[in-house]
């Protein structure tokens, strides 16, 4: 232990005075930022176990007799939350699979130098990154083709992502052309080449795109808010919205409380538990994807 300290000290002492000040200032700043991220989260976690009255009057108290799991019980036994979870999983899985598949398919011809019409199609796609019809015309279209209150209204309009297509195209281009020549592709077996040879060497790309699309869909609420009316089709974020933003939890969650004040306190407490339960899956899962972030980001940062 002492040795390590000495070693660190000596590596630190190789810096000049200006550099030392610079480093100390830098590390302090970084620590401050890390704390600023962690502290609010810790607060929410701890507060979620507190008894509502104590929390409101005294704030966080480390008197464990005052701690309770009531909020979690109520949230976990509420059916709306679970319906929201189920829908969010369905929409996010279907969306990320459909979207990444279509994007990967489209990027393949767009990555080929000999593809006739590449410029035209490229222009068609790029224009949509700059200009669009906007909210109302899109809404009217969805309504006219009968997709209102259908999960496809949330999934299809954003399923093809031009930016991701450019990223995938750049990635394909970085794959050695020998691979292609070895496969000796002619017109007939493009599909075989794509599925058997190209996709298997694109795992990092696929992982990153799936992650982005999944998280994007999981966390969004606007499309679901405007297109889905039935409460049985609401994704998690809309259920959360009524609890966290509109202060209107499902009446069943707080109905047994006698006074309005008690109900309000409980509704407040439910927020903490709801935040934890709903955020946990992604927060727990994402470190497993961390190794793909850097490769994915490097792919994305290359000019298309």
């Amino acid at each position, binding site marked *: 232990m002492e040795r390590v300290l000495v070693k660190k000290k000596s*590596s630190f002492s190789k*810096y*000049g005075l*200006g550099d030392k000040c610079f480093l100390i200032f830098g*590390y302090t*700043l*970084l620590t401050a*930022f*890390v704390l*600023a991220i962690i502290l*609010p*989260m810790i607060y929410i976690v701890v507060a979620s176990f507190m008894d509502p009255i104590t929390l409101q009057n005294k704030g966080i108290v480390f008197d464990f007799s005052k701690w309770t799991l009531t909020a979690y019980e109520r949230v976990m036994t509420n059916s709306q939350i679970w319906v929201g979870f189920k829908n969010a999983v369905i929409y996010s899985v279907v969306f990320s699979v459909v979207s990444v598949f*279509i994007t990967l*398919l*489209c990027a*393949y*011809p767009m990555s080929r130098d000999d*593809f*006739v*019409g590449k410029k035209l*199609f490229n222009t*068609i796609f790029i224009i*949509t990154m*700059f200009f669009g*019809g*906007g*909210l*109302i*015309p*899109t*809404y*009217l*279209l969805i309504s006219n083709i009968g997709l209102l209150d259908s999960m496809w209204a949330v999934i*299809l309009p954003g399923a093809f992502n031009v930016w991701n*297509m450019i990223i995938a195209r750049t990635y394909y281009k970085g794959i050695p052309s020998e691979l292609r020549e070895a496969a000796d592709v*002619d*017109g007939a077996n*493009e599909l075989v080449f794509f599925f058997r040879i190209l996709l298997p060497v694109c795992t990092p790309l696929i992982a990153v795109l799936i992650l982005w699309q999944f998280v994007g869909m999981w966390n*969004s*609420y*606007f499309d679901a808010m*405007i297109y889905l009316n039935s409460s049985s089709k609401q994704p998690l*974020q809309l259920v*959360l*919205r009524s*609890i*966290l*933003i509109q202060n209107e939890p499902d009446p069943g969650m707080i109905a047994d409380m006698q006074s309005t004040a008690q109900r309000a306190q409980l509704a407040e407490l439910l*927020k903490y538990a709801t*935040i934890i339960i*709903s*955020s946990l899956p*992604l*927060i727990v899962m994402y470190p497993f994807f*961390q190794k793909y*972030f*850097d490769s994915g*980001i*490097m792919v994305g*940062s290359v000019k298309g």
Partner: protein
Amino acid sequence: MGKEMALTKSRGKSKLAQNITYIKQHWQLYIFFLGPALFLTILFRYVPMGGVLIAFQKYNPFKGILGSQWVGFKYFKQFLSSPDFLQYLANTLKLSIFGLLWGFPVPIILAFLLNRVGSSKLKQKIQLVLYMPNFISVIVLCGMVRILLSVTGPLNMMMGSSINYLTIPAAFRPIYIISGIWQGAGWASIMYTAALSNASQELKEAAQIDGANIFQQIKAVEWPAIKDMVVIQFILQAGNIMSIGFEKAYALQSDMNLSSSEIIATYVYKKGLLNGDYSYSTAVGLFNTVINVILLVLVNKVVEKMNDGQGL
């Protein structure tokens, strides 16, 4: 000259024939590979572009675009001459411009700081924390903000005050921008961090041997490694200042802070979908899009000048 033209002409003819053969031979590329993406793009992107015509109509859903009455620029005039217009435009611009100016440097600074963390294990742990907020949804983020800033919340308890921050118009922008940095800065620093760690190790070592201090190393080795990326990111974000997202602004709105929190996107939603003023809100949205396109083009021009004639 004439000979050249004749040559290109004959080449052009055979090129067309070549292209047709190519398409026939590679029809799979067009049908299976490009087809789905093209179909979705045309249906969900280009058809609504035609739909903006209702901005120039007194649109009646039962008569459709073909049957509705044309009114020219009536709705644009109505919006531009309304007292709300300047306020909503200013709210939109202030929110995104201040957000960009405050938020843009943070990920870059974070990346430089991370790059100075010697132990790679510690660095990875810090990164794990820094990226985490990115995986929290807008709704949960806004829910957390509401809890932390509520009248009985921890901030008020610490300050011994009882201020309801979400009802104060002046507090909306700081809340929006700070929570945005809290959530996004770590994630946005990934690409800079990756570029910095790929910066030539030899150059770094050479600089160290030459006795360059940290500041000089940053100037000579690290900054050049990310400069292009910084410029591109700035353009992309500056070009998007009019397309600031609906979701977060809407989730942080309260009836009391609307004078600073109502932006064009939320206004379009309320007017169009909640009030059913289809034509009027389409006009407002179109106005927004057109400014956005102009901005993108302008920003690109500026960069071309800065970047020796190389734009995006």
